[in-house]
């Protein structure tokens, strides 16, 4: 059954809420009362519940099965975290409430910050970035501020080809020129090429470690030393921190700034595309430039350092990145998750994540090409390519075939350095039984694609929709609903 749009089933006269009657007063709306129809349909509560319940059933989700999206880290989202985030003492707090009334909330931020600093071995952390990409921005702004503070106006940022798209986008967003760093044949940063490019115009190098080929950058410390020697900074994309948490501290590798995706490493839910949260850990060199606001413990009190209170505290801050103080709702969830795991559990998280990925890599490298399979163990994700599939069969066909097998597709065509890349990240919350089922399914699809099974090209068959026409969508974008009569008249 198809689910109609709210615009097709609702009416502007229907509502699913009751309000107390408004007291009669003379309006003070400055003669700007809205008199036109807004066009917002309402549904009764029953109809609303049905509409969204039915729609939800057209989604795939972690709660339904394994979600092998490489680099996206779709792991179990414990319900305790949801419960805690909804405690009125956290959920029903105004961001500008007097500090004496929010000591528990500030304590949460402080406690989570302490964990992040300790786990990464860094100097301090900026908590306010709203997501990973926002965290990248934070790191680059800190770097830029640090350079400017010493009168050093560098203009170039080096980024490996295999980087997430956000890396170059962020660098450009804050006014930098982006240059690629080449990779070695084994899938890592080319140290010599990097060293050769370093110079007085290079502000920073952005490196993902473990990288998006699922490999640990062995030369990380050497890279950092070279970068520092050249007067530049090292930004580490922390999207894959879940592979090493508790086993390696980025601070020990010379990193100056790294964002941590709380929704990846610390399991805050993805929610169909957000909200995320991207705190950024900083080295001692960058710490003075961290954005406002932040939380300090003064005696037995927690203080939110912001414009009003910053005066003599934090003169070098590069400023505010966002209204208020960041993703509190994600902080409570992440801290709950961290306390549940503890230091021992978090180490086990990385261990099991890597174990699961290597198990998939070695269970499938006989039927799927693993371009860096010879480079040693992978970290938390296994990379395959489309090499060896029958003529005309692509990574896309395998991905869509997975849907019919009851799984979400893996990440496809990323990283760009591998042709027809398939990046599989099982995460640590999958059981061996679930992995075995997935391996079986992917193996069978690989065999079908090698044998040239034409049916695969039209997969999926058993999803709520068949393959969708993305070209049509982009050619003539329909981004809002229009009443059919108006839409017709417009043509």
């Amino acid at each position, binding site marked *: 059954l198809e689910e109609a749009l709210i615009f097709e089933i609702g009416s502007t006269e229907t509502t699913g809420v009751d309000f107390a009657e408004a007291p009669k007063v003379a309006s003070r709306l400055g003669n700007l009362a809205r008199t036109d129809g807004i066009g917002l349909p309402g549904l009764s509560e029953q109809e609303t519940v049905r509409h969204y319940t039915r729609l939800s059933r057209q989604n795939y989700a972690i709660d339904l099965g394994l979600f092998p999206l490489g680099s996206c880290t779709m792991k179990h989202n414990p319900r305790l975290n949801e419960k805690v985030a909804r405690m009125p003492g956290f959920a029903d707090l105004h961001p500008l409430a007097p500090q004496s009334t929010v000591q528990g909330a500030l304590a949460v931020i402080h406690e989570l910050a302490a964990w992040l600093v300790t786990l990464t071995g860094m100097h301090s952390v900026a908590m306010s970035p709203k997501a990973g990409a926002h965290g990248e921005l934070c790191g680059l702004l800190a770097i830029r501020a640090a350079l400017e503070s010493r009168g050093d106006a560098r203009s170039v940022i080096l980024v490996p080809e295999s980087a997430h798209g956000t890396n170059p986008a962020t660098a450009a967003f804050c006014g930098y020129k982006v240059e690629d760093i080449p990779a070695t044949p084994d899938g890592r940063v080319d140290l010599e090429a990097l060293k050769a490019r370093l110079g007085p115009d290079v502000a920073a190098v952005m490196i993902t470690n473990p990288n998006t080929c699922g490999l640990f950058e062995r030369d990380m410390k050497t890279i950092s030393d070279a970068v520092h020697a050249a007067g530049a900074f090292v930004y580490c994309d922390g999207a894959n921190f879940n592979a090493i948490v508790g086993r390696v501290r980025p601070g020990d590798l010379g990193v100056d700034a790294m964002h941590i995706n709380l929704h990846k490493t610390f399991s805050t839910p993805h929610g*169909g595309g957000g909200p995320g949260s991207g705190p950024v850990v900083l080295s001692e060199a960058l710490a003075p430039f961290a954005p406002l606001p932040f939380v300090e413990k003064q005696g037995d009190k927690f203080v939110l350092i912001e414009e009003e209170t910053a005066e003599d505290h934090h003169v070098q801050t590069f400023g505010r990145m966002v209204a208020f103080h960041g993703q509190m709702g994600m902080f409570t969830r992440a801290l709950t998750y961290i306390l549940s795991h503890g230091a021992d559990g978090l180490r086990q998280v990385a261990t099991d994540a890597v174990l699961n990925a290597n198990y998939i890599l070695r269970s499938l490298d006989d039927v799927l090409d693993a371009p860096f399979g010879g480079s040693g163990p992978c970290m938390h994700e296994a990379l395959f390519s489309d090499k060896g599939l029958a003529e005309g069969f692509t990574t896309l066909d395998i991905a869509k075939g997975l849907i019919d097998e009851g799984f979400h597709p893996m990440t496809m065509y990323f990283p760009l350095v591998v042709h027809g890349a398939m990046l599989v990240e099982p995460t640590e919350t999958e059981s061996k039984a679930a992995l075995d089922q997935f391996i079986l399914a992917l193996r069978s699809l690989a065999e079908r694609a090698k044998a040239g099974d034409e049916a695969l090209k039209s997969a999926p068959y058993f999803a709520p929709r068949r393959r969708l026409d993305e070209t049509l969508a982009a050619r003539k974008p329909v981004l809002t609903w229009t009443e059919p009569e108006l839409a017709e008249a417009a043509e």
Partner: protein
Amino acid sequence: MRYLPLTDTDRQDMLTVIGASSVDDLFVDVPAEARLPGKIAGLPEHASELAVERHMAALARKNLSAGEAPFFLGAGAYRHHVPASVDHLIQRGEFLTAYTPYQPEIAQGTLQVLFEFQTQVARLLGCDVANASMYDGSTACWEAIGMARRITKRGKAILSSGLHPHYVSVANTMAKFTGDALLHQAPTLDAATDIDALIAGIDKDTSCVVVQYPDILGRIADLTPLADAAHAAGALLVAVVTEPVALGAIKAPGHMGADIVVGEGQSIGVGLQFGGPYLGLFGCKQKYVRQMPGRLCGETVDAAGKRGFVLTLSTREQHIRREKATSNICTNSGLCALAFSIHMTLLGERGLRELAALNHALAVQAADRLAQVPGVTLLNDSFFNEFTLILSKDAREVVRNLADNGVLGGVSLGRLFPDAPEIGNGLVVAVTETVTAEDIEAFAKALEEELA
């Protein structure tokens, strides 16, 4: 370690398949000196659900939540009643634990919601189109300034003194690096907005004028003359709405000529949450759609001819365009957009108008009552659900003292504008449907005592 399903037997079996003798072998690429030999010292070990819940509940109890006190805070974040069904629905695993809908065949639930959300937002703001969400209002505001720069190829933006100071700060932070010139000064304690001054300031280098509606002091002004002036100079008008419930009562900025309307959507469906996650709203005129930042969901058909939805125009986005993208935004506020959309569907136009009318009426009652307190003057001629009181002393201190007496009585201008001591006696007061007559009376009494 209740979230880790592997048993030791599983681990051993898997190592055998991999051909490694221990899990440590999988970390060979980590330089030996960087490998931690065991768990990080000085941190606690794993804890039971009971113990963790107890710890977090103890921290939660150390806060005075809005529901526990007469509550009048606004200034960019508003406390509205969110129907229980909203929170129920967003917690369905199929919404909560889904990824960004890059695989449309199995993400039609999220995609249809985003399409409906975009339409709701566009209509509410009075825009042709809206995107699928940004982080929050303040970052959406900066994105709008950047978008105006790309469209006009000019680098000077004029920010209204009535714009939320945090939004100004965010823009200043970014502008330092992009080189945009931003003109801004703190507001004055005046019943009239700075529209005339803004009009006077527009010149041929102006990329856009950014104006908040209602503004930080709660004032409402017709934006039409400002839009006309901006357009005449080849500049854009960017309107910022921090309280979208207002648009159930007052004209939409898009209908007064705003080219880009951004907003903070937290008021509808999302809740206070100590400041985040919130929901950036972003709408604009159809002709600017390819310059928009953020995700967009569009209608299309599937291979069987059925209507369906996909993320589209992604050539604007970082994962395709990399350094040439319109923004670096990736993960946005999907779940908050869902909450907004569900709440808006429950309200419908009728409910939204009733809600707005109730907010306004209570605010009028509260303003009149509070203005009777000796030492208090009401600044506003016009307002929706938020207004500014001028007190007979510094409002920062008043707010702190009221809190000690169990009343959460607004936001002081001193906290918002620490560099403008001349307006330090101003207090911004918000009144929503969650405020009762008893709350207003309690606030008035406490204020009377404080100012006596």
